């Protein structure tokens, strides 16, 4: 071996040593991290100290949901669809299932009925309606001036046709559940009838629908209000409609803009529909294109897009100062985050929840209530989301201003109270390790399932675990890690295959236009992942959609009672309500981010100058 070779060998060994050392030191970094996490958890107690470090706290009440002004004549608006995928391109309300597609459709088509702030149908839409006294028969009259983009009038037949298509056994979309409330739809679907009994075309513009039973839910999003142009679709077999050119290449609607061209999956150009029934749109044209989430801020800053359909709220504090050419519109979002307790499984045979409190580790309501008292959701909102999420109280989010009952007192952060409840309920630390055992003196370890994704997922889950540990409840992450989205819903029971290892989970719901929570917490719905049911809950939920509840005051009362009952029973507890922020270039005026009760319609949006404002 020559000297040079020895030198080389030495050098290689040095390198290897270096790598080993590096590996060690990164290991010790990890432990350092988890320690500092604990430190943070404790400083929660101390109060405001941590808030200072995290910067400004915002309040959603300071944001306006709309922006008004005097637009110039014409102009082109660039709209960004923020997506890390392409849009699927099923551009028709009757067939789409992709959320991005609906953003594309919204520009050129619209529902036939308008809605007010409670999502109740109004007489301001393209059609007006009348209801019989029992509330199960509706007569709709489509306005004379409402035409398809090709100039053909929208007829009652078009509307009935849409429902017939959805009820057809060959239909490949996901909206069948939306039309089953009409008399005769199920018979038609099963091939037992040639037509739908509950649909009656009275004349060219008038359609009568008969529903199986009257319920207030019909009035708030329970009616299928999207027509399908029969003169275009009638020759296409139902199974091929969703892939046809009439949906994918040259779709038409009744909205303020017409589709001019589509580059599949990436962009759409629209021109104004001069014949729009509310009046001529202000803009000449709109260009919609897909923007990657990584580049949203840049695209807004350079004016490449005037606005986007959604903006990650957690980025707001970073860009608030630098994006001077943009105004942020904001509102309370239609969703909430919650922590759920698993108290049973899904009975696939009978399609209902199979509650089993005996064998559930969280079957005791006192334990669940104590766990609610143990967490500080206001601090979560401020520390993780700069105040753009905040402590949630009941399961009907404040988004439903009318139904949300803010007089109900819900548990807020109070570790002493949590300790007291647990002591009284018999959860005592028998073996002196700082962790409580269950009333039978057995070890109690709860498995917590939480979804991965986003920067805050991990620290947030850790925070909850630490908060519970401080009142002596030992909680561990399921499998010791966060769960990927598909995996999470699979195991939490999206198809009824509940994972028995899960005791607690953190989920989120974005709620529908109808306040009725049966679809999430009813005894016969698979989405009720807690598998909790009880008579009172079922009674209140049924009461809320009963014919008597057609009376708004009565319905409010029922849902107040339900909210209170859920706070008492704690099958789940809501953690934070959310906000929604939408950045809009300063040249854009007359834009309202609310879909319901919006004071400004889409045809009114305009720009004040030809070029976007840049910083």
């Amino acid at each position, binding site marked *: 071996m020559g000297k040079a070779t020895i030198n080389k060998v030495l050098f290689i060994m040095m390198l290897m040593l270096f790598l080993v050392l590096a590996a060690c030191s990164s290991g010790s970094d990890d432990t350092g991290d988890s320690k500092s996490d604990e430190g943070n958890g404790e400083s929660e107690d101390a109060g405001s100290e941590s808030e200072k470090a995290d910067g400004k706290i915002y309040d959603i009440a300071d944001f306006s949901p709309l922006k008004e002004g005097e637009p110039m004549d014409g102009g082109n608006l660039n709209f960004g669809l923020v997506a890390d995928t392409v849009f699927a391109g099923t551009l028709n309300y009757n067939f789409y299932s992709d959320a991005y597609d609906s953003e594309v459709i919204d520009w050129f088509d619209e529902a036939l009925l308008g809605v007010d702030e409670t999502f109740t149908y109004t007489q301001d839409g393209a059609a007006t309606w009348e209801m019989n006294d029992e509330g199960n028969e509706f007569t709709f009259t489509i306005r004379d001036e409402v035409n398809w983009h090709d100039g053909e009038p929208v007829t009652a037949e078009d509307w009935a046709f849409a429902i017939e298509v959805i009820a057809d056994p060959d239909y490949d979309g996901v*909206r069948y559940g939306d039309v089953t409330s009409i008399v005769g739809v199920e018979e038609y679907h099963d091939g037992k009838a040639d037509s739908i009994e509950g649909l009656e075309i009275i004349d060219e513009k008038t359609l009568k629908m008969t529903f199986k039973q009257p319920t207030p839910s019909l009035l708030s999003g329970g009616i299928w209000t999207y027509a399908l142009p029969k003169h275009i679709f009638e020759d296409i077999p139902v199974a091929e409609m969703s*892939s046809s050119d009439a949906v994918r290449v040259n779709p038409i609607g009744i909205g303020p803009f017409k589709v001019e061209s589509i*580059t*599949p999956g990436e*962009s759409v150009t629209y021109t104004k529909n001069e014949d729009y029934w509310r009046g001529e749109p202000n803009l000449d044209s709109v260009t919609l294109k897909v923007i990657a989430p990584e*580049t949203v801020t*840049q695209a807004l800053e350079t004016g490449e897009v005037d606005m986007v359909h959604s903006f990650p709220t957690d980025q707001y504090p970073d860009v608030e100062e630098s994006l001077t050419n943009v105004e942020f519109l904001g509102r309370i979002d239609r969703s909430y985050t919650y922590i759920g307790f698993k108290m049973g499984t899904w009975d696939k045979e009978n399609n209902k929840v199979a509650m089993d409190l005996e064998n559930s580790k969280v079957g005791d309501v006192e334990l669940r209530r104590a766990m609610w008292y143990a967490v500080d959701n206001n601090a979560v909102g401020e520390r993780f989301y700069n105040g753009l999420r905040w402590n949630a109280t009941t399961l009907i989010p404040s988004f439903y201003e009318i139904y949300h009952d803010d007089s109900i007192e819900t548990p807020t952060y109070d570790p002493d109270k949590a300790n007291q409840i647990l002591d009284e309920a018999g959860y005592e630390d028998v073996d002196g390790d700082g962790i409580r055992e269950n009333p039978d003196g057995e070890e109690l370890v709860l498995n917590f399932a939480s979804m991965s994704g986003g920067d805050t997922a991990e620290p947030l889950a850790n925070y909850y675990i630490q908060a519970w540990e401080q009142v002596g409840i030992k909680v561990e992450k399921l499998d010791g890690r966060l769960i*990927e989205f598909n995996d999470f819903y699979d195991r939490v029971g999206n198809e009824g295959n509940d994972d028995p290892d899960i005791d607690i989970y953190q989920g989120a719901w974005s709620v*529908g236009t109808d306040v009725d929570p049966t679809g999430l917490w009813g005894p016969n719905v698979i*989405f009720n992942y807690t598998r909790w049911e009880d008579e009172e809950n079922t009674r209140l939920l049924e009461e809320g959609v009963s014919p008597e509840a057609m009376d708004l005051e009565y319905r409010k009362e029922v849902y107040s009672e339900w909210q209170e009952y859920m706070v008492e029973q704690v099958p789940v507890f809501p953690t934070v309500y959310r906000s929604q922020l939408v950045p809009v270039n300063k040249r854009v005026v007359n834009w309202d981010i609310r879909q319901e009760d919006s004071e400004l319609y889409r045809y009114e949006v305009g720009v004040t100058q030809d070029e976007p404002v840049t910083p």
Partner: protein
Amino acid sequence: MWKFIIRRLLITFPQLVFLSVLVFIMAQMMPGDALTGLIDPTITAEALDLQRERLGLNNPWYIQYADWVSGLVQGDLGQSFRFKMDVTALISERVMNTILLSAVSLIFTYIIAIPLGIVSGRYNDSPLDSVITGYSYLGFATPIFIFALVMLWIFGFQLGWFPTSGSVAPGLESGTMEYYISKLYHALLPGLSIALISVVSTIQYLRSEIVDTKQKDFIVTARAKGASENRVYNKHIFRNSILPIAAFFGWEITSLISGTVFVESVFSYPGMGLLFLESIMQRDFSVVTSLVLLFGAASILGALLSDIILSIVDPRIRIK
């Protein structure tokens, strides 16, 4: 040689079958399906169940597999659930974008790599060589998605020289000259980003081959016979050094089809890589399996092509 090609293709066939079975089983094991993402209180669970039944998602995997294979032999790759269109139509929509992007990046790669490699090899251990080698180490160490973001930020947003997303400007009519120019224009920046990173391996191959070759006896002979230095490099050394690059070419062709996931997603460039990624995320299985099959076939053919190219470039290699 024909015998060789046919034999290779025959071996390929069971490989593809194995690949597709494997993909099918793994797809089955993945949590969730195409409808999992549709958890939405406005869509009833019954409607979703109806869909699962219709799509055959409730069947065991071997029945789904048999369905798929019987469609395949008839040239039908099935329907994409998410796009609600035929997989063949979907792929043909995307494949042109990817081929364009890969061709652009391949051209850039060779334009940059060959001169740099030659210079680096010819003047090895000179300061110039150090700079080029330094660049290639940097290139090895830089993750492509970070680099692509930086390129996008500088040339797309700060300088505004290039479009920042999509494969074509909105509103242009397909088939016009303007449309094709816009297509090419959109592919330039992502193509360049890929090229600047992927050149480094080619530079290093070329450099080490040249350094190796120039010490060979026949080069000494050529010099002794009085051949000019340029002639020695351009004729004798270059031709001999190009061998590994030529062999690599077959593989590069494969990438023409499979695309590049990261760059495509940074530039929102709708190509095959992006399609593959989002189909996996959305559990759009018919697309995933078709793409895997396609990519598998492409890489097997690429390997074959590499062998054939090698035998043409280097007469010493004989395929039997």
